[in-house]
C-alpha cells in the first residue's frame, strides 16, 4: 500500500484484518504527523462531489459513520475490536449546525442514515441557533463525530507493525517501480498520484486551517455559504478554524492575510473567537480530482494496481468505506483466481 494518510492506513488495516496471511507493507514518503490527513479536524460529513456518484459517497461515508458510532458506544465489530479502545481517544461525539443558502444541498440521501438530521428553515430558527437572521438561509444539524487523524493514525500504525505489516518510509517515484506480477499495489497516494502515475485529473484545493484554544465551544459550527464560508470544529485539544480555499494552488505557505480572514469569518458565526488563543496554522492540499474518487482495479502489463485516491476534502469521511471497497475488490480477485 502506497500512502500512509487516512486512506492508505485504513486500507492497510482492513486488508490485513480480512486477509491475515497476506504480506503487506505500507510504503510512504510521509507518515503522521506529516501527512495531509494530519491537518484535518476529522469532522465526518460527506460533501457533494459533483463527479463521484452520490450513491457511492453515501455508501462509503455511512460505513465510516457507523464505524465511529460503534467505537464510541463500545460495540465495535469483530474487525475493529482489538483496536477500538485505543481509537476512542481520537473520536468525539459532536453535534454540528451548518448554515447554507442552497436548498438543493438539504436532505442529501445520507441524511436519513445519520442521527437526528434536522433542517431549520425559518428565520426565527436562525436567531435561535445563534446565527444572524437572513431570509436566504437554511440550517441543518445532525449528530456526528470527529475522528482526528493525528491521534488515530499512530494507533493504526502500531497495530499494523504489531501484526507484521512493514512500515517503510520511502518515496516511490513511479508506479512502475513497484508493479510486479506477484504483488498487488494499492495506490493511496492522494495528490501524489499526479507525479507517481501522471494523473492529470488531480488538482489541489488548498485549505488553510488555524488551530486555536477557545474555551466553551463544544459544538461544530459551519457557514457553507460561499461569501461567508467558515467552520469551527472542536477537536480534543483545541478548535480547528477554517478556511481559505484556493483551487489549483500547490503552495503550502501560510499567508497571514488569510489568517485574519479566517478569524474574522469564524468570529461572525462564533463570538468566542474573540478570545481565542492561536496555537498553530498550516496549509494543506486537498487531493481533488476531476472525474471523482478513483477507486478501481487496473491491470497493467507489469502487474495489478487498485487505485484509492482523489477524495478531496472528504478523506476522513470516506476512508472506512473506501477501504472496504478495496478489500472487496481483492476478495473478488482471489475468488476468480486472477491472482
Amino acid at each position, binding site marked *: 500500500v502506497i500512502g500512509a494518510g487516512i486512506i492508505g492506513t485504513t486500507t492497510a488495516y482492513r486488508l490485513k484484518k480480512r486477509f491475515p496471511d497476506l504480506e503487506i507493507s505500507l510504503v510512504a514518503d510521509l507518515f503522521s504527523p506529516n501527512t495531509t490527513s494530519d491537518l484535518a479536524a476529522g469532522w465526518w460529513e460527506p460533501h457533494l462531489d459533483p463527479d463521484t456518484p452520490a450513491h457511492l459517497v453515501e455508501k462509503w461515508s455511512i460505513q465510516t459513520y457507523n464505524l465511529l458510532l460503534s467505537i464510541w458506544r*463500545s460495540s465495535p465489530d469483530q474487525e475493529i475490536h482489538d483496536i477500538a479502545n485505543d481509537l*476512542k481517544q481520537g473520536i*468525539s461525539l459532536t453535534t454540528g449546525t451548518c448554515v447554507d443558502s442552497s436548498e438543493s444541498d438539504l436532505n442529501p440521501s445520507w441524511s436519513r442514515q445519520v*442521527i437526528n438530521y434536522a433542517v431549520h428553515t425559518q428565520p426565527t430558527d436562525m436567531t435561535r441557533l445563534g446565527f444572524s437572521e437572513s431570509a436566504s438561509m437554511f440550517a441543518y444539524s445532525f449528530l456526528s463525530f470527529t475522528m482526528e487523524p493525528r491521534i488515530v493514525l499512530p494507533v493504526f500504525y502500531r497495530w499494523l507493525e504489531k501484526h507484521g505489516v512493514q512500515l517503510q518510509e520511502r518515496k516511490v517515484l513511479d508506479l512502475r517501480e513497484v508493479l510486479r506480477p506477484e504483488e498487488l499495489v494499492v495506490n493511496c497516494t492522494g495528490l501524489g498520484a499526479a507525479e507517481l502515475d501522471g494523473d492529470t485529473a488531480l488538482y489541489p484545493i488548498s485549505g488553510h486551517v488555524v488551530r486555536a484554544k477557545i474555551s*466553551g465551544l463544544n*459544538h461544530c459550527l459551519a457557514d457553507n455559504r460561499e461569501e461567508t464560508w467558515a467552520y469551527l470544529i472542536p477537536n*480534543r485539544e483545541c478548535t480547528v478554524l477554517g478556511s481559505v480555499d484556493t483551487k489549483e494552488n500547490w503552495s503550502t505557505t501560510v499567508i497571514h492575510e488569510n489568517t485574519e480572514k479566517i478569524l474574522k469569518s469564524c468570529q461572525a458565526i462564533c463570538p468566542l473567537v474573540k*478570545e481565542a488563543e492561536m496555537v498553530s496554522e498550516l496549509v494543506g492540499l486537498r487531493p481533488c480530482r476531476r472525474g471523482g474518487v478513483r477507486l478501481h482495479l487496473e491491470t497493467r502489463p507489469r502487474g495489478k494496481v487498485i487505485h484509492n485516491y482523489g477524495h478531496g476534502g472528504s478523506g476522513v469521511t470516506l476512508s472506512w468505506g473506501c477501504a472496504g471497497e478495496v478489500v472487496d475488490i481483492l476478495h473478488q480477485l482471489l475468488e476468480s483466481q486472477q491472482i
Partner: protein
Amino acid sequence: MDRKEVVVVGSGVVGLTSAVLVQERFPQVKVTVLTKSESPNTVSDVAAGIFRWGLKNPPGKPNTWALDSWNWYQQLLKTNEPDVTGISKLPAYFFSAHDASQCENDLMKSLCKVYRKCTTRELNLPQPEGKFKHGVYMHTVQIDTHLYLAYLTDRFRKAGGNIRKCEVKSFKEIQADVIVNCAGFGARFLAGDRELVPLRGQVIRVKAPWIKTALYADDTYVIPGQKHVTVGGTRQYNDWMTEVEPNDSARIWSRAVKTFPCLAEAEILGEVVGLRPHRKYPRVEVEEMFGKTVVHNYGHCGYGIMASPGTSIQAADLVKDILTSTYSKL
C-alpha cells in the same frame, strides 16, 4: 448618617452572588463577606456546574428563580469570555431507563433555544442497547465553578466589597444592619434549622477532552467543564462523611463506563466530596434573630450553582427593603 453595613455569611456561590448583588446595588453600603472556607474548598467547588432545573418552588411564591437564574447566566454567556466568567454553552443529553420526567423538563424546554426529544437511535447511544427509553437533547449552560467563583469574587471586590476568612459561630457576634445568611450547610447550626440535612455527593474528576457533550443516564452523569470532566455521582441522604469513600468511586466509575464506554480511557485526576445543603426548598426570607435582621438564603441542595442568581436576586430585594425602610425610619 452612618454608613450602613451588610454582612454576608458564606462565600460559596450563593454567598458571593448575594454579596455582588447587594454591593453593586448599594455602593455606599459596606458589604463584608465572612467565610469559613474559600474556593477551592467550598461545597460549590465540587459541583460540576450544569444548568438543568429540578428545584421545588416554595408554596405560595411565584417561580421567578428559574427565569432570573437563566437570564443571569445568559447575560454572562453573552460576554463571550468563558475563561473569565466560567460560563459556556453546553450540548447535553439526558437519558432515563424508566422515567420520562427524569429527562423531559418543561421549564428547560421553555428556556433552551435547542431542546428536543431523542430519536430511537439516540436512545441507543448509551449502553446497553434498548435500556434507555426516554431522552432529551438540549443546549444548556455549563458553569465552571472554580472560574465562576473567582469571577464573582473579583466582581465583588471591584464593587468595593471585602472578604474576611473567619468562622461565624453565631449571628450574635456580627454587627451589621442586615446579615445575609448564605452559610449553606452551616445554616443548620447558625439558624438552628434541623430541616437542613446533608445530601452527600461524591464525584470523580477526569481528563477526557474528547467528551464534548454532557451525558446523563438516570443517576450517572458525565459533565465536561472547561478544565476537566466530572463523573458522578452519589446522593446519600443524611450522610455527613466528607472524606472520599473508595467504594463510592468504584461504583460511580463502573456505572459510568458501562453506560458511556467512551469514558474508559480517561485519566483520573481525583475525587471530591461535597455535602449538598438539602432542604425541601431553599429558604429565602427575613427573620429577626438575637436582635439582628437576618435575610436567609440557604438550602439549595444540589441546585446551588443553578439557582443562586434567582434566589440571590430575591434576597437582595429583601435587603433593599430592610435598608430603605431603615433609612426612612430616620
